[in-house]
């Protein structure tokens, strides 16, 4: 005898679970036990685990499908009641399924709407689940992805997360016991013109170690090596699978070719496999990060095995600030939190929408089944009268709903696959993560569980109700449904459907209006005609601040002389990506009590910045050329900053500094607020300090065009830059409008999905209401025939159905508006410039839903209107 220890080979779990389909309780235990024993016996005989498992599968399947009717001399028909014998119960389940399938095939008028409804809901749920899984549950699908974390720096109150400084990253790198590897990379944007329309691409400038740390091999070619990082080396690039297919036709020969990205020529050295979009689903391209990182850069780290996020956090917090005058600490963030940070609200709202959709579909199908059971009341009564037990009847009815659910689930998965493809085409530029969303095994399990749950949900209630029906009542009704009877219950369910659909439509409309507001939100400057060019300034031993300063002046003069240029200036960055540093602000005389001026965006600008950007200066003055020659340091602050921290004194003339080692700078002006980082209107986003820019290694050139597309100026501007310094690298050219569009990517994503769900919801409600109305119309044919033959006009007949549709819709709209108001808090935080209970939006949504209800009633009404009394009455 062998004994089974936990480490010994186990029989296949799935085969074991399959047995439960046919065997229950004792029967399952005994059969499973036999199979287990045979499995172990095979192993003892010396069979391989593989063969033993194969034998187990074979016998399990044979047991599952073995003929239930063994050759028996006295094989009498079994009575139609469930006996206690466990093996017979299983047999009956199969026969229920067969009978159910035959019945469904005979009544496509019921089966089709029901299956379609469930398919839509299950499809939407499966599609959303796979999106959520990609975006939220496993955002970094790499080997050891659970050990990857993002590193940031944060202030004491942890209000703001910033990318860490290079010296901090260096320090953390020495924490061998915590981090296996740390890699910093920089986001870039390029305009690509090859292989189609010019397109802006999100890219990452990656060090040699980034891709190896993630452990993903290229599909074609190679990854970056240390030699590629040499600033003197030929620039190299690696393409994402999507970009490769979209713009280069998926031809392998692209590897080894050179392509033009922005202003650089890059040699393509590799193509990554599908779904690889590091770091957070926004990248289509990687370039070798030549030279050292500019300043702060996004940082990804791999934790040592056995070290979790909290332990890593404790380790870098214990190490304290990097330098004595810094109070900021390191912060470790899991990828899940990183995504949650930006998408949390959207995800919560979408989860709510999907729940509603499922509710809608369930009500829909339950409604259909109730309608159907009514028409079958006579048949069920006959079965009861002939001795079928209540349990047996219920099983028969449940078998039908289960079959409908399974068909719906399978069709739903097809719809989900199709929906994901469609979503991928619709997705905003920044959310390439959607591309990775696919129907994998986990999604299939999810859909299966959903199907089972739905089957029970929609089948159980009607089955209980039908099996309870008293046979005598149904029989004495002569097999004909009574006109009007039961319409109340069905009408209520239809109203619930209309209500739920209305909630979804209201949500989608609110988001649409909010997005429209967000797109038109005032960024604080005039983006029309603004073009930005990222420059790396000349470097070398003989290049000092004065040389660079002269270079910027010459460049500004040269570009200003172009005919189509209205204004030129330089800055460290522009909103909504101000390219800023944060720090603790020391205010001479102390800040107002209770305030902590520690998280301020800090921009460096040249003269002409406020004029070029058209940012009004409310008090004091803008910078003048004198402010840039050595003298008393000066700053300009934003209105919100002045209001929060200089409220107790005149803002102009106040003194403050960023660093205890510096002299205090005097405030010479107060500028209107801009949305420094993103488009949200928080104080944090509008508190800003501007100081005169002293050019270092990189700077942003800002040009305002007189008219037309500022991109048209690109070539002329480049020519002027290269006339001054032919070797000057230009890292990025983009319009301010393009940068603003990127800031609305997340709300767009939410809108696309909720819009899709609302459309499906509306379709579900229409399909459901249509299905019910068809049944009602069918049942009323006899009644209508009698009415018609007694002299009623067709208008009167249709009017009756119209009134029915009318009260169902009115009730549904009332329910929907009430429900939407209840749920409005869920969506309120996602809305900009529109309240969650906006009256015109509610009204528009209600109109749309009413229209759908009227459309759904059209065919049934026609069907009633064309009733030929003589024919109908003869058939009865």
């Amino acid at each position, binding site marked *: *005898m*062998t*004994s*089974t220890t936990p480490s010994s080979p186990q*029989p296949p779990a799935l085969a074991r679970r399959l047995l439960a389909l*046919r*065997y229950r309780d*004792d*029967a399952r*235990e*005994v*059969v*499973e*036990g*036999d*199979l*287990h*024993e*045979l499995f*172990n*016996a095979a192993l003892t005989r010396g069979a391989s685990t593989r063969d033993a498992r194969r034998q187990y599968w074979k*016998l399990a399947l*044979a*047991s*599952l499908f*073995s*003929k*239930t009717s*063994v*050759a*028996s*001399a*006295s*094989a009498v028909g079994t009575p139609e009641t469930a*006996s206690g*014998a*466990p*093996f*017979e119960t299983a*047999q009956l389940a199969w026969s229920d399924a067969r009978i159910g399938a035959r019945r469904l095939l005979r009544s496509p008028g019921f089966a089709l709407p029901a299956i379609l409804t469930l398919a839509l809901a299950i499809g939407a749920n499966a599609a959303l689940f796979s999106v959520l899984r990609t975006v939220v549950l496993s955002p970094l699908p790499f080997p050891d992805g659970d050990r990857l974390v993002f590193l940031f720096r944060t202030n004491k109150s942890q209000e703001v997360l910033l990318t860490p400084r290079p010296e901090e990253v260096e320090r953390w790198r020495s924490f061998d016991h915590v981090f296996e590897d740390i890699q910093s990379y920089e986001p870039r944007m390029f305009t690509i013109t090859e292989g189609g329309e010019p397109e802006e691409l999100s890219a990452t400038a990656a060090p040699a170690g980034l891709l190896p740390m993630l452990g993903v091999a290229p599909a074609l070619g190679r990854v970056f090596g240390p030699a590629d990082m040499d600033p003197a080396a030929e620039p190299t690039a690696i393409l994402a699978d999507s970009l490769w297919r979209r713009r280069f036709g998926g031809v392998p020969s692209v590897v080894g070719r050179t392509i033009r990205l922005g202003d650089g020529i890059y040699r393509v050295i590799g193509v990554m496999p599908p779904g690889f979009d590091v770091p957070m689903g926004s990248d289509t391209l990687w370039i070798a990060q030549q030279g050292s990182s500019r300043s702060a850069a996004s940082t990804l780290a791999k934790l040592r095995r056995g070290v979790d996020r909290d332990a890593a956090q404790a380790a870098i917090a214990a190490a304290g600030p990097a330098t004595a005058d810094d109070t900021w600490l390191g912060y470790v963030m899991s990828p899940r939190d990183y995504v949650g940070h930006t998408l949390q609200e959207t995800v919560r709202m979408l989860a709510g929408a999907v729940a509603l959709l499922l509710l809608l579909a369930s009500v829909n199908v339950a409604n259909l089944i109730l309608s159907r059971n009514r028409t079958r009341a006579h048949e069920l009564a006959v079965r009861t009268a002939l001795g079928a037990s209540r349990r047996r009847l219920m099983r028969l009815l449940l078998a039908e709903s289960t079959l409908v659910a399974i068909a719906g689930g399978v069709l739903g998965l097809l719809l989900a696959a199709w929906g994901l493809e469609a979503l991928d085409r619709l997705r905003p530029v920044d959310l390439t993560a959607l591309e990775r969303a696919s129907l994998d095994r986990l999604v299939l399990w999810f859909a299966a569980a959903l199907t089972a749950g739905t089957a029970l949900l929609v089948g159980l209630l009607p089955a209980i109700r039908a099996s309870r029906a008293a046979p005598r009542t149904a029989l004495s009704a002569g097999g004909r449904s009574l006109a009007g009877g039961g319409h109340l219950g069905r009408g209520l369910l239809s109203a619930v459907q209309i209500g739920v659909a209305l909630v979804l439509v209201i949500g989608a409309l609110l988001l649409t209006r909010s997005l429209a507001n967000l797109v038109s939100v005032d960024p604080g400057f005039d983006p029309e005609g603004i073009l930005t060019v990222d420059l790396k300034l000349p470097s070398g031993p003989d290049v000092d601040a004065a040389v660079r300063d002269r270079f910027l002046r010459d460049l500004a003069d040269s570009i200003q002389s172009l005919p189509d240029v209205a204004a030129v200036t330089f800055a460290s960055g522009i909103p909504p990506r101000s390219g800023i540093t944060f720090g603790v602000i020391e205010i001479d005389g102390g800040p107002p009590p209770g305030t902590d001026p520690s998280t301020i965006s800090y921009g460096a600008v040249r003269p002409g910045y406020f004029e070029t950007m058209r940012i009004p200066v409310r008090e004091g003055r803008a910078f003048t050329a004198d402010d840039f020659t050595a003298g008393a340091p000066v700053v300009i602050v934003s209105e919100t900053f002045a209001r929060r921290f200089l409220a107790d004194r005149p803002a102009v003339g106040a003194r403050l500094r960023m660093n205890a080692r510096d002299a205090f700078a005097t405030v010479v002006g107060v500028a209107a607020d801009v949305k420094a980082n993103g488009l949200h209107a928080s104080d944090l986003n509008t508190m800003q300090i501007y100081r005169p820019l002293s050019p270092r290694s990189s700077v942003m050139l800002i040009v305002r065009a007189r008219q037309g597309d500022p991109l048209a100026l690109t070539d002329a501007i480049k020519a002027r830059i290269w006339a001054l310094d032919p070797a000057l690298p230009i890292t990025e050219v983009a319009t301010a409008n393009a940068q603003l569009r990127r800031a609305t990517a997340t709300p767009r994503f939410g809108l696309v999905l909720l819009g899709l769900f609302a459309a499906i919801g509306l379709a579900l409600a229409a399909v459901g209401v249509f299905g019910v109305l068809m049944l009602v119309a069918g049942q009323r044919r006899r009644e209508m025939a009698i009415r018609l033959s007694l002299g009623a006009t067709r208008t009167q007949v249709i009017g009756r159905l119209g009134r029915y549709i009318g009260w169902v819709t009115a009730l549904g709209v009332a329910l929907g508006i009430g429900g939407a108001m209840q749920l409005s808090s869920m969506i309120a935080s996602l809305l900009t410039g529109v309240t969650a209970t906006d009256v015109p939006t509610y009204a528009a949504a209600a109109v749309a839903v009413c229209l759908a209800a009227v459309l759904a009633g059209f065919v049934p009404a026609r069907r009633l209107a064309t009733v030929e009394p003589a024919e109908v009455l003869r058939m009865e």
Partner: protein
Amino acid sequence: MSDYLGELEQILFFALLHLGDDAYGVAIRELIQERTGRSLAPGAIYTALDRLERRGLVRSRLGDPTPERGGKRKRYYKIQPAGLTALARTREAAASMARGLDPRFQR
């Protein structure tokens, strides 16, 4: 009672008789495989025995769980007097029908 047995049922009965107190799924299956070369799925064996039990021809009881069965119990079967009668009757009927024919049928 005029029960007759099917062919599989007869084979199962003979197995039960051979095995005595030790007649449970795996043992029955192995004996049948050994003697006839037929490999039966456990499910098929139980379906047949279940039917015989409902006809009152055999009785079953649950045994104790054992480790080589993954902690699952066995179900032991025993022929009832009615079962023995049915087996004898079936064999007799077959024998009387075969009498006078090809000697191979009479074994």
